[in-house]
């Protein structure tokens, strides 16, 4: 069986694992907070830019940590635009994303991309790694696992519970004495911190940061969330988080497979958009189909004219 060679599978899984951190961020804003946060496209690049700049200064680890903080800041701006200035959530995200484009360029020293060839990154830092072949996978898996566990426990704390309730029913959260402005701020800061972390890791993994690397990121995150939910279910919180991660890996494998079949890489975004469209319209399509079927059976039973 030579559908895909091992190297391709391995690199897809690696990508899937790193992008899964971004998808968990998207999960927090879109699912937990129920807010369509489009900051993601910008905060992903912000993370990558911060990470790349610090790599060139020989500080890859500091790059990762600062990227987290920068992402949290970006998310906070979106949250404040929405809660304090009463701008619609979707527009708040777009505004931050737009502003971030300029900011990212500034962070990158007015260059559109930063190559990291021959730089120290967290993926080639440790010399104790078994074989270099699996180093990237092991490191990113460890990170992803840590993020997932921390996120799981966070969502089970007191503050985590009100965060989840905010997405369900804001009115109730306020009626029980908690400021929804605050929960949204925390949620969006956390979500974008994860997105930026993912961007920071990708930059070091691919050895470059590019100002355009975030385009459509939110859709890729959403696709992973939806694929995960469809295949692996949503019955409880832990399962949902794992589903998002697996969704991200499945997404990368599917993309690699399509590329293998000869799809031009420039079609990637088109495919992502189609996948998300299909997934989002699934309930409506199902409904229409069952309606059609009902009408058909009714018509047959009445021996009547088809409508």
């Amino acid at each position: 069986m030579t559908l895909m060679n091992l190297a391709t599978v391995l690199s897809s899984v690696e990508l899937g694992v790193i992008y899964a951190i971004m998808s968990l961020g998207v999960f927090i804003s879109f699912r937990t907070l129920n807010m369509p946060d489009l900051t993601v496209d910008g905060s992903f690049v912000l993370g990558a830019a911060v990470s790349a700049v610090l790599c060139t200064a020989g500080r890859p680890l500091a790059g990762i940590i600062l990227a987290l903080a920068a992402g949290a800041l970006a998310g906070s701006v979106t949250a404040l635009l929405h809660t304090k200035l009463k701008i619609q959530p979707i527009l708040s995200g777009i505004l931050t994303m737009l502003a971030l484009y300029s900011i990212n360029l500034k962070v990158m020293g007015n260059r559109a991309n930063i190559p990291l060839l021959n730089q120290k990154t967290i993926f080639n830092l440790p010399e104790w790694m078994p074989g270099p072949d699996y180093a990237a996978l092991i490191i990113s898996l460890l990170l992803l696992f840590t993020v997932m566990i921390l996120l799981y426990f966070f969502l089970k704390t007191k503050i985590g519970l009100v965060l989840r309730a905010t997405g369900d029913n804001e009115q109730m959260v306020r009626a029980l004495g908690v400021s929804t402005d605050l929960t949204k701020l925390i949620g969006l800061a956390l979500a974008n911190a994860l997105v930026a972390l993912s961007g920071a890791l990708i930059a070091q993994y691919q050895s470059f940061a590019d100002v355009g690397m975030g385009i459509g990121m939110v859709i890729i995150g959403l696709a992973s969330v939806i694929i995960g939910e469809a295949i692996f279910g949503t019955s409880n919180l832990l399962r949902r988080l794992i589903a998002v991660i697996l969704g991200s890996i499945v997404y990368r494998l599917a993309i690699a497979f399509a590329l293998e079949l000869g799809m031009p890489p420039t079609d990637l975004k088109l495919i992502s958009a189609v996948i998300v469209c299909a997934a989002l319209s699934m309930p409506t399509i199902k409904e229409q189909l069952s309606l059609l079927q009902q009408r058909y059976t009714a018509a047959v039973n009445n021996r009547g004219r088809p409508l």
Partner: protein
Amino acid sequence: MLKINMISKTFDRGSVNEKKALHQVSLSLDEGEFVTVIGGNGAGKSTLLNCISGVHPVDEGSIILDGTDITFSPEYKRSRLIGRVFQNPLLGTAFDMTIAENLAIAWARGKPHGLSPGITRPDKALFREQLALLGLDLEERINQKVKLLSGGQRQALTLLMATMGRPKLLLLDEHTASLDPAIAKKVLHLTRKFVSEEKLTTIMITHNMKAALEYGSRTIMMHEGQIILDLSGEERAEMTVERLVKYFESRSGVQLENDRLLLS
């Protein structure tokens, strides 16, 4: 306990839709007093409760609760002192979370929300105990999501959440109006039980005149943004639904035949 001084509220001031919902309303409640509120559609009952709970800022006047001036404090801060149940059963709970998680959020009301575990084992035992008070067997379903509950069960759960931790004030806005008569009655009984056991200061809006006289210790009637009748003591004990309806009709000029005010 609660002191409302001359509050007014006008919606959409200055537009063609300008609507005076409250006009210089004053109302004082002693600690443990249970007041029922009646009045026609658009009388300003909900607006009164929404002004007390901070959903709407008032245009003038002041609101003092338990010695604190809350006139200008935001809704979520007031909610630490005020428990609320809304007419719509969907508004009181987070539907995609479990019964235990909903109770945990209510139980944490007014306490700092840190990174401590949302639900501990003793919490769960306490929640089971409290749920048993409802007599709806919800204590067996503590780990089920709220979306699986019926409207009546949700309203009972919301009532429990609103009264947990003994709020200074309990506000009920037709909280049984969207329920089947049998379960509505059950929720009303639970309301009376919780209010009397905890001696909660309570304001309950109802469209049911019979319930208005039957429950609580005082009844006020609102009309066009004002309190037009305030009954308590002997005067209230002697009041009948028929006389109340007559009074309402003579004051408002609205005939109430077959109106839902009469239905029980």
